[in-house]
């Protein structure tokens, strides 16, 4: 089985008047089934790194291999296809289509699928919504759902194309602590099912739910350590509910 992510000396320079070196040679390998958090203050280059990992942006130099495919020299259209087939995105701001049902939102990546699938897009999407626990909310419009539910829809959307990698960019940033716990529980559950997840966050607390923490500063990886004592979101949620008496 190939590594899910393998970058070598990844550099990104923005050609401004005074060139900005957002990434200055990043080497990272992430294997299948890993649950990695990328931490760093703003300006550390983690967003740029995330965009390159997500094939939304191209590195200035260096190589990037995603699920055995060299992504470096691909065209815009080829990158779009890679995103469609191999990556699932979860954003801080949910990024769902407004005035559109949960089901249609989840179906969206399949609309742009070039390979024909045997399973009907609708069935596949319903399946994913069941996996994130929204079986009874499929027909609801985006604005009729709570923040936590919206993020669950986004996670269902990221699952729908059976991606090699789920990229989550501050997924709990807009949510209260209880809902955050709830969602981290879902991520942990999905990871247990074997899905590789890379989670970008600036909160050390959240990073504790993952299995490995990568810290970035000034466009470089400064620390890459396994989490010794992984927090269990489900357990904590039960305790949390107990404390406030729900």
């Amino acid at each position, binding site marked *: 089985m190939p590594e899910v992510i393998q970058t070598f000396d990844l550099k990104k320079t923005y050609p401004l008047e005074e060139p900005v070196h957002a990434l200055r040679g990043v080497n990272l390998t992430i294997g299948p089934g890993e649950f990695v958090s990328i931490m760093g203050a703003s300006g550390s280059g983690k967003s740029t790194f995330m965009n390159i990992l997500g094939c939304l942006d191209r590195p200035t130099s260096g190589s990037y291999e995603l699920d055995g495919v060299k992504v470096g020299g691909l065209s815009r*259209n080829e990158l779009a*296809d890679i*995103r469609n087939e191999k990556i699932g*995105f979860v954003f801080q701001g949910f*990024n769902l289509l407004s*005035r559109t049902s949960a089901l249609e939102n989840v179906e*969206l990546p399949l609309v742009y699928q070039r390979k024909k699938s045997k399973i009907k897009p609708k069935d596949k999407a319903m399946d994913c919504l069941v996996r994130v626990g929204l079986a009874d909310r499929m027909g609801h419009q985006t604005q009729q759902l709570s923040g936590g539910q919206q993020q669950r829809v986004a996670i269902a*959307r990221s699952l729908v194309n059976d991606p090699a990698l789920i990229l989550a960019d501050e997924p709990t940033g807009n949510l209260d602590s209880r809902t955050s716990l709830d969602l981290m529980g879902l991520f942990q559950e999905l990871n247990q099912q074997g899905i590789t997840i890379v989670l970008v966050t600036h909160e050390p607390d959240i990073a504790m739910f993952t299995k490995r923490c990568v810290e970035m500063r000034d466009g470089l990886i400064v620390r890459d350590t396994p989490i010794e004592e992984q927090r269990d979101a489900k357990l904590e949620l039960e305790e949390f509910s107990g404390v406030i008496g729900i």
Partner: protein
Amino acid sequence: MKIFKLLGIAQSSLLKNRTRSILTMLGIIIGVGAVIVMVAIGEGTKENIETRINSLGTNLIMIRSASNSAGGVRRGFGSSRTLLLKDEHTIREQCDLVMAVSGIVNVNGQIIGGGSNWSSSVMGVSPDYTTIKSWELDEGTFFTERDIRAKTKVAVVGTSIRDNLFGGGDVIGQSIRIQSVPFKIIGLLKSKGSTGSQDQDDVVLVPLTTAAFRLRGDSKYVSQIYVSATSMDMLDAAQEEVSQTLRMAHKLIDGEDDDFNLTTQTELTEAFTSSTETMTTLLAWIAAISLFVGGIGVMNIMLVSVTERTREIGIRVAVGARGFDVMMQFLIEAVVLSLFGGLTGIAMSFGVCRVLTDFAGMTTIIQTDIIFISLGVSGLIGIFFGLFPAKKASELDPIDALRHE
């Protein structure tokens, strides 16, 4: 990506902004509607004129005397008296391309009959006159060659004469007096209705010779000669033949001007329709400009829509839409918008034409080809004005688009 999927996306996004979509379409609706209605009015007017001119006669050539001038004052056609009774005979004998000929002698006068009186136009004509005009008899008979030779005092009247003098009763066998000369009514013309202000049924026909000798007194002359060519195609050839025959008969030498004037039905039609055509073209152009403005409206709204939906575009691109997919989505939206506007415009133009016909009494003709042309044009407008916004949408950077608030 399949086309119906794109159509589905276009449909749902247009429905989400219903008011805006309808307002945008309004530009196209009015543009297309205006073009069709203008052309329909033009076509209707043209046909109106053609029917009116055709009601003058079948494959008609009208011959009048040329203008004369007395002491430098030119007096217009028909002012000289050069057309003779015998010219009619000459044309009938010598012209092969002529189907029917009738001299016409106009007589004015009060008609007295049935204990009442009425002013009408009395015309002396030949029996051929009914062929030329395609007039038919309702009752009785028309006068014949024998009546012409014998200058009998018989008359064929139109229904207006019957209604005004005899109160709609039986007229055959009744007698009327024109300029104190008694005539016996032998036939009643079928009613033809009026064209514009002219009542075609207010007419009294008497034998040409009777009118010339007994009513006018200047027995040699006719006011006009109406000639019917054998067919529409032969009209020009017949005109030439009649012209040559008359020149010979009038002993005109080469280089001398005609002392008569020929007008064919086609010339009349052309003269009358050319001005309407200019008008129609002008109006259609103005309507086309409004259609163009409608197209700019489509582009405007599509540009707003692209900006407003930047985030949506970002999401679509992030989950794997190619630039082409995004472009097609917006292009199809623009085309659907303008095509739908075009269809509505066509439907509305039918309604407007109906109203114009029913309430304003205008003749309107909507031709099939103009419908397909305007539908095609509205589709093209969608492509033309949708392309720029769609291209703009497809070139958005996904990272910026996702961050767009």
